[in-house]
Each structure stands twice: as C-alpha cells, then as structure tokens.
C-alpha cells in the first residue's frame, strides 16, 4: 500500500485556505478557452515574424529578431502548461501542442515531463530538484547564467547524451526504466528533424529559418533565463512551498506570454489548476505565499541583494 504524501494542496484544504468546492471549480479545463488563446498566440507569432521580414535588409532586423525571440522562447511556458495537462481538456491536445513547443525550443516533451515531476516533488531541495537553479554567489555567476550559455551547453550535452542511448545518474532517478528507450528515441527524432531542416535549407539555398527561428531563440533565451530565475532563486532552499517559491505580479503582456506562470507559488500549490484560473487561485492564496509585487525586476533586486550580502559576509565586513 502507498504511504500518503502530504502536499501543500492537502495542507491548504485541511487549513481551510481553500475549500473542496472552490478547488473543483478552479481545476476545470476548457478546450474552447485555450484554442481561442492559442489563436491569439499564433497571431502574435505572425506579427513578430512579419516584423522580422519587414526589417530584413536593415539593421532593424536585430531588435526585430530579439522581440520575435522573446515570443519564441515563451513556448517554454506553453509547453510547461501542456506538461501539466492543464491547457486543454482533451489530453492528447496537450501532448501534441507540448511536442510542437518542444521542437521550437529544443526540449523533448517526454523528458521534460518526467524531469518536471521531480521538480514539483522536491522543489528547491538541493540534490533532488533536477530543475533547481543554484543561487549565484557572484555577479559573474549571475551574468553567466543570464547569458544562457550554460543553459544551451547543458541542453546540447543532454540531447546528444540521450541520442547516444545514455542517461546520467540524476536522470535515471526520475525517468522510469520502461521509458528509457522512448527518451532515446525522442532525442534521436528531434536531432534528425533539425538535421533534415538544415539539409533542406542547404539544398534550397534558403536560410530563412536561421533568421526567423534560430537566431531569435538564441537572442530571446536570456529573457527566459531572467524570468526563470524569478520563480525560486533567492528564496529559501526548504520544502515549505510558502517560502521556497515566488509569485511575481507582472503586467498583462508578460502574463499573456508566460501563460500566467508568474503565479508560480499558486501553481506549485495546486499544479492541476489551469493557467486561466490561476489569477482566481492567487486571490485565495495571496496571504499565504510569497508575493513579489514589483514583479520580475523586484525579484532580481532581491537576487542581487542576496549576492551583495554574501559578498559582504565573505569579505568579513
């Protein structure tokens, strides 16, 4: 018989922060709501792609690619929602859209799903949370993380390792044995599709995807690193959800891009709640979680304050 694990949700229900009826209502999913939102998402993508095309023969292509890249890297947020099966009521639609997002940002969907499960089980616990971003100790470490260079290095090493049919010790902890072969197959398939696209570009002589996809993603990824840091970095590395996660109050365009994942502490409390009801959950839980009212910038001020205090302590001042 399984031993019962007490989750933040169990606690929230037991402590009356949330009633069962409210939970039931907040968890409801909808294909219609998400298909409409996905339609707007595609329109935004078309708009930013058009901006790049219009700027093709001028220096303006660089800021245009940066803006387009910010949208492209936010496919991570949509994929993350799909990993939780909270975008669409129809489960296979989550798998399909999640896979497409994964191809855009080089993150195989199945692998991410398993990795993310352990992130939710062991949030902010050193050695157990596979997505833990270590708090930078120096400004150099902070800037290096934001450059996304370590991120891409890890992602390339990871996908080639899987394509070779290997998993490291950490990955073997969160991927069940019966899924090893599928993880290897996913990595090989993804690399094959990328290779095919490059061959296609070489054969046709049209290298547009480099400018419309690859360079924008590389330029946009530091923005995603900037956002990802705000979720947990600088918060205590403890199991208590009301302490280890930060909710950031951000403006509507950012909420749209990140599929409301700025309500991160609420998401960790109840991962079954879809993005479109997270603001309502925020109203229920806002007095019980850590809320950064100055948003992403406020979170980074907090992170930099931590670096400064560590530096001061190290210098013995």
């Amino acid at each position: 018989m399984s031993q019962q694990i007490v989750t933040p949700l169990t606690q929230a229900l037991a402590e009356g922060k949330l009633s069962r009826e409210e939970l039931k209502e907040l968890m409801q999913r909808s294909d219609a709501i998400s298909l409409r939102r996905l339609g707007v998402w595609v329109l935004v993508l078309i708009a930013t792609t058009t901006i790049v095309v219009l700027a093709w023969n001028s220096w303006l292509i660089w800021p245009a690619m940066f803006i387009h890249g910010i949208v492209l890297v936010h496919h991570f947020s949509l994929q993350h929602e799909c990993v939780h099966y909270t975008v669409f009521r129809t489960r296979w639609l989550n798998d399909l859209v999640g896979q497409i997002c994964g191809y855009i940002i080089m993150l195989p969907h199945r692998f991410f799903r398993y990795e993310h499960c352990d992130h939710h089980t062991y949030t902010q616990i050193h050695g157990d949370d596979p997505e833990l971003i270590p708090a930078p100790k120096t400004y150099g470490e902070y800037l290096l993380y934001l450059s996304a260079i370590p991120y891409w290095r890890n992602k390339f090493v990871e996908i080639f390792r899987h394509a070779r049919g290997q998993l490291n010790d950490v990955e073997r902890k969160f991927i069940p044995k019966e899924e090893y072969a599928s993880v290897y197959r996913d990595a090989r398939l993804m690399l094959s599709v990328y290779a095919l696209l490059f061959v296609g570009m070489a054969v046709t002589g049209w290298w547009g995807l480099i400018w419309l996809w690859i360079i924008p993603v590389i330029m946009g990824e530091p923005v995603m690193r900037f956002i990802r840091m705000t979720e947990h970095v600088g918060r205590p590395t403890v199991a208590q959800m009301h302490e280890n996660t930060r909710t950031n109050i951000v403006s509507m365009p950012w909420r749209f891009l990140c599929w409301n994942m700025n309500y991160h502490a609420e998401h960790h409390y109840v991962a079954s709640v879809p993005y479109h009801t997270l603001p309502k959950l925020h109203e229920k839980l806002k007095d019980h979680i850590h809320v950064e009212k100055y948003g992403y910038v406020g979170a980074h001020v907090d992170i930099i304050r931590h670096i400064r205090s560590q530096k001061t302590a190290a210098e013995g001042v």
Partner: protein
Amino acid sequence: MAREKIWKDILPVEKLEEKWVTRVDFGARKLAVYDTPSGIYTSMALCNHGGVDLCDGYFDGHVIECPLHQGAFDVRDGRPVGAPATRPMMTFQTRVHEGMVQIKA
C-alpha cells in the same frame, strides 16, 4: 485458502459527489469512489506513483488525475493512461444496493 470476498457498504449513494470523486475512509483503507457516465467505480485513494491522495485531483469522465504530477488512470479498470503513472491502480468491484454504494472486499 483465500477468504471469499463479500459486498460491503462504504457510503450512502446520496453522499457521492456528483460527476466527481468522493473520498471514503473504509477501515484502514482510503478509497476513492467515482461517479462516472457509465456508473460508479472505486479504487484505492492514494496514487501508486507518488502516494498523493487522488481525491484532491482533477476528475473528468473516466479519468482521475493525480494532483501532484498529473499522472492519470482510467477508473474503470485502473490502467494507467498518463505518465508518470506506469502501474495499474487497485480497483474494487462496485455496485449500488438499497441506497448504499458497496464494494466487494
């Protein structure tokens, strides 16, 4: 010789949460009772992947989803239908008799 299983009352049918999952403490066991379009089904309440109470999860039609990892099971036969659930969950033969939900146990 294995003890013969008999029908046992677990809760009055009017206490079932309509089209949802209801938690029932049955002796030392925690059960999840599902009101589905094709009838009432019962399983163990704790997810066999992470040990979390499935009764706090999202329920739709015949699929119960774990609230922690969104692994999913078909409540009719317990088979896993979504990762990270890989093993079938334990289910019980269930019926409604004289206003009571009963399981064979």
